[in-house]
């Protein structure tokens, strides 16, 4: 789940950082016409390839790829590619600078010796960024994620100061719908989003850091999510895991931290064949074990104990690079992890609001 990323875009617009989740009212007047945006409903079924494209009318949407990679010396790498769409007002996309859409791209490369991140922004309506379904193409400035209509084959490229990557993704399993047929709840108070993933990518390609090119292979996970609702008040941030188990199964878990009371937890168990099973909050236990100080001075948990007893999961999750801090306009932590215990494997962890 990355439902709280609408908070992220919201904060981008409000130009504030590390603040508690804003109430709907604080969205610079957006709260009033929030109902004018399209709403997420339980009875809706997703249609592909149409739903791979942008959903104008919804307030917030993203295309999110994380890849766990290995170079030919056996060293671990991680790559992140994200495109956010945020609408300033409801309504269809228009031509010209007055389009309601703003686009934001984040990219990161984590590997031996550190974490590098980059951000790029674009306005809608002029072709500077966008997402089209057939053929599938998501782009912002010189970054892109494009390929077949069913997302089975994708090429992903992005760059930043001192790094760039070009990765080819080939899926070996089906798309996975989270929650109830893609209707994914984010709190006990009715906040929800449409959410599906493609967690079964095999990856090959090249990463380049400080002028040095390396061939890499590995696995990747794509997340698609859109919504119109900001977070409930009192929700201060979230911790999100996407885990590739060595057995071939996948596990998605998240927890939304509350300033008061117990966090909201949910997840999806995905079998190696791609069958999804929603996990309820009481089935998931997350416990911070160790913290790391980030470049902004904040302490962030980078070692966790993750338990899903129903699926015999009891593992210790460690960040590959404890300082995988995203120094973007709205900073957060996102980086590759590896885990061992009852099962082992690799994955990605995202933490905001610290």
């Amino acid at each position: 789940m990355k439902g709280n990323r609408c908070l992220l875009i919201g904060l981008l617009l409000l130009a504030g950082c590390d603040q508690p989740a804003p109430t709907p009212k604080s969205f610079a007047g957006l709260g009033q016409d929030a109902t004018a945006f399209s709403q997420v409903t339980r009875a809706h079924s997703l249609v592909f390839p149409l739903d791979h494209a942008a959903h104008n009318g919804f307030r917030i949407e993203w295309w999110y790829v994380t890849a766990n990679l290995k170079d030919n010396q056996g060293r671990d790498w991680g790559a992140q590619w994200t495109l956010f769409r945020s609408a300033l007002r409801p309504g269809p996309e228009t031509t010209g600078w007055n389009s309601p859409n703003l686009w934001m791209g984040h990219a990161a490369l984590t590997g031996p010796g550190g974490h590098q991140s980059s951000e790029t922004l674009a306005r809608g309506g002029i072709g500077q960024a966008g997402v089209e379904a057939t053929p599938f193409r998501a782009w912002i400035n010189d970054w892109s994620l494009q390929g077949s209509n069913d997302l089975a084959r994708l090429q992903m490229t992005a760059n930043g100061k001192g790094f760039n990557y070009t990765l080819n993704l080939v899926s070996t399993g089906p798309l996975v719908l989270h929650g109830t047929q893609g209707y994914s709840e984010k709190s006990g108070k009715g906040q929800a989003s449409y959410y599906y993933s493609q967690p079964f990518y095999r990856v090959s390609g090249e990463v380049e850091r400080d002028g040095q090119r390396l061939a890499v292979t590995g696995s990747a996970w794509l997340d698609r999510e859109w919504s119109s609702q900001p977070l409930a008040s009192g929700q201060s941030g979230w911790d999100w895991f996407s885990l590739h188990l060595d057995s071939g199964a996948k596990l998605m878990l998240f927890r939304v931290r509350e300033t008061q009371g117990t966090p909201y937890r949910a997840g999806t168990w995905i079998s190696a064949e791609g069958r999804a099973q929603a996990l309820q909050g009481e089935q998931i236990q997350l416990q911070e074990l160790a913290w790391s100080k980030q470049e902004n001075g904040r302490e962030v948990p980078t070692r966790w104990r993750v338990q899903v007893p129903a699926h015999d999961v009891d593992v210790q999750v460690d960040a590959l690079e404890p300082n995988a801090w995203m120094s973007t306009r709205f900073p957060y932590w996102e980086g590759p992890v590896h885990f061992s215990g009852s099962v082992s494997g690799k994955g990605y962890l995202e933490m905001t609001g610290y």
Partner: protein
Amino acid sequence: MSPLLIALQALLSHWRRHRLQFFSIFTGLWLATALWTGVQALNSQARADYARASAVLAGPAQAQLVARSGERFDQSLYLQLRKLGWQLSPVLEGRLRFAGEQPLTVRLIGIEPLSLPAAMTVAGTSLQGFDLQAFIGMPGQAWVGPDTLRQLGVDATGRATSSDGQVLPPLVVQPQLAPGVIVVDIGHAQALLHAPGQLSRLLVGDEARPLPAAFAERLTLHAPSDDGDLQRLTDSFHLNLTALGLLAFVVGLFIAHAAIGLALEQRRGLIRNLRACGISLNTLLIALVLELGVFAVLGGLAGVASGYGLAALLLPDVAASLRGLYGAQVAGQLNLPAWWWLAGVVVSVFGALLAGVSSVLRAARLPLLALAQPQAWRLAQGPWLRRQALAAGLLLAVALGCWQWGNSLASALLLLATLLLAAALLLPALLDGALAWLARLCRGPLAQWFVADSRQQLPALSLALMALLLALAASVGVGSMTEGFRKTFSAWLDQRLSADLYLTPQDTTQALQITDWLARQPAVTTLLPSWRAEIRLQQWPVQVQGIIDHPAYPARWPLLEQRPQAWAQLASGRAVMLSEQLARRLGVQVGAPLQLPNQAMTVVGIYADYGNPKGHLLVNADWLRGHLPEAKLSTISLNLAPEGIAPLKADLQQRFALDDSRVVEQASLKRWSTEIFSRTFAATTALNSLTLGVAGVALFISLLTLSQSRLGQLAPLWALGVRRTQLVWLSLGQTLMLSSLTVLLAIPLGLLLAWCLVAVVNVQAFGWRLPLHVFAAQLLQLALLGLLTSLLASAWPLWQLARRQPSALLRQFADEG
């Protein structure tokens, strides 16, 4: 009580009995500080506004991409370059016009905040600091400075409407924003400027790299900042103001100096007593300096306050002339930082030290016993006079050097300053000489006394007379220059503005359509389209104007110098004509070759181009279009029968959607130009009259102070039988004689000054030389004004003398006894 306190108390008690002296020192410092800080306020306000104007988009030195054609380009170029990984931020700029009682044109800047380089600020606001959603959303925001908001005549909650009916986004006041600028989101800018999909330039966010060939054909990379132009262009204007302010400062210090000197002289007895009582010289000097400090702070505070008032009063004129002359937008209201006030007081303290230091030093050097002798002061004046004459000689040598070898505005102003100071320093010696010569002519005892006593008054009055000389000479000089300029300029304007209608089309395409249409109108007798491009010659911005071969030009384009067949050679496309200031800057003369961007040309003519801060170059239109493809058809001027003007204007406006600012009649253009030029000198004239006023005050105060010590000289005459009324007339005659002699000297000095201004300072400051005109009536007027000033200044002291009771005169003898 400490000795210092005792000394201070004793010294300060003097002012209780001599309020007038207190007032004179205070006035001197007050006026000096007021005029100086006033001028500084004007300058710093204008400079701050230039800085604000060039810092609307401020960041680390910013390279930018602009179209080779100089016009706008399609935003697809921006998108393509972004796809190639260039970090760019698009900007669209244009002029937005507003109708109304005072038609207003503002610079509209459309920015794209998302892509602005992170370190960049817009009107002093960083990207993190403003409400992005409100700015780029609907209805968006239009940022204006407080001054522009006032000019728009809309309150902060209202919406402004441009002259073509476009409603601006809601206005948001940004105190940091330069006047005459409106900043909106680029989307709004494209709509307001009728330029959908068009951009003016691209700010380069990262290190500039070579453009791919496909783009290099259309775009070109401009090195960071060409914005210093405004600062450079206006430098001379501000230097002139500064020079005038300095002159006023010096005159003010003369007053303070005179009064401080007299106060010290009157306290010789007191100082002797204090010293005799055991107060050490050091303690005494510290007390004197402290006393001076009190004056300085009081005068400084008053001066800074009135300087602010003066600047506020003059600012609209200064702003108007800067706008007219240089296109520089300066706010009509002062907005000065706190340090400015402090600096004013510091200037006053500095001035007080300057004015008082010689008196304090003299008090320190005079022998203890000599202090008590009434003649000690006068005796010390003797070598002082000689030293002054020597200093004057040295200053004259410097002036001569400046004239011979100087080649800058600073040296020209130094020439003026040294000339003025030398004349002022020579004045006492000259007057002394003149009186000595008169004394030899006088026969009767009363006449001899008249001249001898005048000579005796001279040292006390000399500073006031110097101030009068300086102020009068400056008035004559500045007056001759402004009048001469007005005369030359209006004659030039009459010749140059000889078309009936002037059109400024929106762009070249429209201009060509208009030209075609006009060519088919039988009423139009002369049709002169002119093309324009901007280039740089030796780093100086130059406007190149391309004109067609037409017999009207030789008649309406007066040339200062030319070669035979100049106009025919220009039409051939192998020759150019230059404005006087450009020729001077490039150091070329008629007949010399001139290398233009694509071809070498011959200079065949030089013309006056008053008021243009940029260089101006005249070429053949076909040549210009062939060699500088970015040239635009910018203005069309035409002649027709007077009765046809109004209908044609209406027809043009309707047919081509041109508002009043784009179709201008000759009369209003001329009115506008003359207005700018008269306002240019309004501030100069005002400061000049103030300086004359200050000199009057100086004379008045000196005479007033003198009159109190005059009883000693007048009482014996009265005792010898001269009546009081006769004494008054004699005193008046003395004053008038001294001031007449000063006025007589001031006139040639003023004319010399005028010559320096038109032939040296103007050439250095603006690049043009004006003929020297002598206006006899003006000279007479100023001479009478000078005499009137001194008459008025002596009136009050003399009236007091006339009312003196005989007992007061008698008491003089009693005191001596």
